[in-house]
């Protein structure tokens, strides 16, 4: 078992899953938040058992854990890969910082507090939420690119002897 490659591959899969759910929220959920207060009442009525926050509170730390594991496992061999993985981890943490500082206060307004604000203000908050989500997606996308490039580099670096020679280019 090649821990260097396995940890990085899992980090790639999880960070892309995070990207996919972020895009899903922007494409599917965010446009439906417009039209407050009725749209928000429907959302609150629907999300009565679970809500998206519960999912992200598992996936985001899971992604960060595997990014950290990949960073630890790949600390020594290739300096460039180390910094790419460190950059990806920093971006994932920054994404969480955006969530806590920017999205959580807006989540409270949209999904928890009493809907006494004017409809225009609620729609503005929903628009801000969607804009903040684009920032989050951009951060995660950059992290995905960094981890993906690291994965390619590590795959090549950890190639067994026969793969170093078996370039099919010679067979063409």
């Amino acid at each position, binding site marked *: 078992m090649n821990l260097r490659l396995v940890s990085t591959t899992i980090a790639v899969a999880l960070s892309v899953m995070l990207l996919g759910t972020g895009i899903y929220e922007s494409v599917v959920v965010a446009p439906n938040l417009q039209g407050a207060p009725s749209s928000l009442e429907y959302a609150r009525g629907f999300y009565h058992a679970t809500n998206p926050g519960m999912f992200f509170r598992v996936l985001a730390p899971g992604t960060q854990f595997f990014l950290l594991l990949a960073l630890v496992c790949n600390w020594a061999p290739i300096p460039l890969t180390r910094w790419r993985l460190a950059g990806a981890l920093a971006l994932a943490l920054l994404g969480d910082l955006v969530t806590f500082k920017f999205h959580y206060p807006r989540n409270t307004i949209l999904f928890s507090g009493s809907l006494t604000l004017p409809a225009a203000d609620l729609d503005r908050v929903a628009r801000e939420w969607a804009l903040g989500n684009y920032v989050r997606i951009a951060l995660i996308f950059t992290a995905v690119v960094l981890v993906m490039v690291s994965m390619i580099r590590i795959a090549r670096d950890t190639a067994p002897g026969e793969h170093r020679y078996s370039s099919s*280019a010679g067979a063409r």
Partner: protein
Amino acid sequence: MKTAISQSTQYATPPSVSGRMEKCSGDRPIPGVGLARNWRGTIRLVSSFLPLILLSMLLGASSFQLAVDTPNWTGVPALEHYRAFYQVLNPGTFFQTLLPTTLLALLAGLVCNWRPIPATRWRLAGALALMILVGVLTFTFHFPRNKILFVDPLTRPAAYYHQIVTEWAAGDYIRLAVIGTAIVLVAVSMIRIARDTAPKELRDADTSGGANPTAHRP
């Protein structure tokens, strides 16, 4: 380390490598050959990691739906709220774009990597077949249940809808397992392709600490 090994004569140069050296980096290099291989290698690599990205996105969004949406489909009022909330766009819009795109990307990956490595070809073909299976499962199993839950009038008893939601979730677990298997197949293929398309200098530079059989080359 590399200098020490480079003096060693215990590693023989494999015929394929020496053949390549004669062809591409000998006394009379063929202009453009290295560049063409580099370009082909990049296409092969990109065509393998694009499906990996799309498949993982699909897995993420499907997991989100299973973990976040499905538990809330309990009772007729919740289904009414769901229908009322998803007025502008619904999850179907997202998946009906992402799934065909993933299938196309997998097909492109398969075409670009058809010849070089047979094992990779069959892994990518397997992933494509699995994703076609996901499409078939969606159309034949989930679409009829989607219609009952989200389109038809909610006139049946709550127990009936609960049964439909349970079936929908069970089918989604199968869908997630199939997508997960496809991700493993594509990830293994991508690793193999990354190694196969490695530039010569990376093949020669072994930072993993293992013996480097190519290091004796001048």
